[in-house]
């Protein structure tokens, strides 16, 4: 064990994944403490700039969670998320940030257990990647 505890930022949409996170809480599903949730109305409102900013300034991993495709409260918002976030990850890869530090997934309001799983798996994955190298080049 390196003792490395990654800091992770999660964008959750108000209607599905934030509610799914709430449900995980209601059901007392235990998970790592590393993930800090920011509520947005729709996953499609997450600007690539937020992901880039977070990772270039030393956040170890960024999660974007939305409604399942077809379930978006705003009908087609998450269709954009589905293209935008993987593209952002690809762009980050070109400047030397491991694209595995960005993860997009879908969690419905009924999937407290999936939220727990996604969080647990992502924390484990980022722990495996080690600290974000950008941490050392703060500007």
């Amino acid at each position, binding site marked *: 064990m390196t003792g490395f505890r990654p800091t992770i930022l999660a964008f959750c949409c108000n209607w599905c994944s934030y509610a799914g996170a*709430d449900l995980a809480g209601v059901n*007392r599903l*235990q998970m790592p403490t590393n993930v800090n*949730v*920011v509520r947005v109305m729709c996953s499609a409102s997450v600007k690539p700039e937020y992901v880039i900013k977070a990772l270039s*300034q030393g*956040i170890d991993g960024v999660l974007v969670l939305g409604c399942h495709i077809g*379930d978006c409260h*705003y009908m087609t918002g998450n269709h954009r998320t589905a293209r935008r976030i993987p593209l952002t990850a690809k762009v980050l890869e070109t400047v030397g940030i491991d694209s595995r530090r960005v993860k997009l997934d879908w969690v419905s309001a009924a999937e407290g257990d999936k939220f727990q799983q996604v969080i647990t798996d992502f924390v484990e994955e980022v722990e495996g990647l080690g600290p974000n190298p950008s941490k050392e080049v703060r500007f």
Partner: protein
Amino acid sequence: MTSRIGVFICHCGHNIASTVDVEDVVEYAKGLPSVVYAGHNLYSCSQEGLSAIKESIKKNELNRVVVAACTPRTHEPLFRRACEQAGINKYLFEFVNIREHCSWIHTKEKEEATKKAKKLVAMGVAKAALLEPQEEGESGVVPKAVVIGAGLSGLSAAAALLNQGIETYIVEKEASVGGILRDIAVIGPDDADAQELLGSLTKIIEESPKANLHLSSRVTKLKGFVGNFELTIEGGGKEETVQAGAVIVATGGVEHRPEGEYGFGKLKGVITQLELERLLGSGEVGARRVVMINCVGSRQPGREYCSRVCCNASLKNAVRILNINPDAAITIIHRDIMSCGTAAEELYREASDRGVRFVRYGLDQRPEVSAEGEQLVVEVFDETLDEKIELESDLVVLATPIVSPEDSSETGTLLKVPRDKYGFFLEAHVKLRPIEFATDGVFVCGSARWPVSARECIWQGQAAAAKASIPISEGKVVIEAITAEVNSEKCVACGNCALACPYEAIEIVDTESGRAARVNEAQCKGCGTCVAACHNDAIQQKGFSSRQLGAMIDALIRATAEVAR
């Protein structure tokens, strides 16, 4: 205005305080930028807790409030109201969730949970400092409604609207009203006259000067938002554009036709339950031996749901055949009898008492129907007897489920409302908003949502009408101030936002600073999709601006370093 932030950390009894060191978080919050007061409450949402917040706002001249407690999804309106009562614009309130997202999911890691709570509070405070007061918009409401579908639920909805004096457009794709009800003589379980009911509803519509009935017509276009929809109705080679404040979807369901199953379509004398209804209505049932097979095409892989109305239809029609011919031999082959409710259960008992035979079958051993000359033979494995039995029959009646009409996908796309995997429409919330779609101003009733009985069609139709009449009678709708706004100085009128908007709420217009995007506030639903589509950071969502979210990211980085010390 310099930010003066007050932070209130909630114990939520033991819910938060048994995991998170609340006092420690309060001490930490006191040192955060712009925080002039930090305190804690046993229950922030109690009368006492809310009073403490309101007093503190006055005493400490707070102009921003952060509450770290449970989830904004349930409690935000409460705290926003408290802020308003203390004279602060309710959009200057920020909620931090340290219960569902912290104490409850880290019960065994007190130290780490406390650190996390500090980070979350730091992020909330950073956002709060940049919050701006907002004004909620209002928009007018066209005092008219549209009901799509004129089956029993649609007619019930339309009649209820018309009775309130609301001008109503009724759009029916078929040449006459009534839907499935047209084929039904009596409605179970108390044998109400279906045609009399249909007649009385039709009369209301025919006699009302405010009813606009469009038969053989369809809604082909829908634009707008609650209070101000614009629909195009096409029918008879004509096209009409109408305005409405609310839309009710009552497109119903259709009978599943089990082509090829149990000899349906091939063997004479194999009919569906709805066909039997028609025969009974015209008094043409002479059959002495009748076998009914339930759950044909439902409660099986691919169509798992129970259609709910078919068991009762079988029971009702079995008794009706017995009323015509008391010597008739009737067997109902079923998978389970779903006769919920007092009256239906009584009907089940009556059928049983009067000699209707009930045979239970399983999915792995389905009945088989064959013909021997004029006579039909049904072979079935009786689970109770544990052996195969043969039933000779003059008539085999298949109870098939109500399924979603094929064109429901078009309706769904047109109205931008979701459907489940069977094609039925999905309401906003099963319990809390059962008659509404998540799209404001659009309502659903009857079998468009799920197979329902005649009684349920009526009450859901009336419920939808009552809901639809709320914005119409209020005369205005409030728009939550989380809409997008354009900085026309920065905007280069590329149109990406307009393309991204799922609600067609953005258009490119001429402004003082040249061509730029403009958001139609009343049409904007506050999803923020346009914000992420903008390459120039020229469009912002109120309450979720890029500065605010950026500040949260900075705060997380800073707080992580601070709590690690």
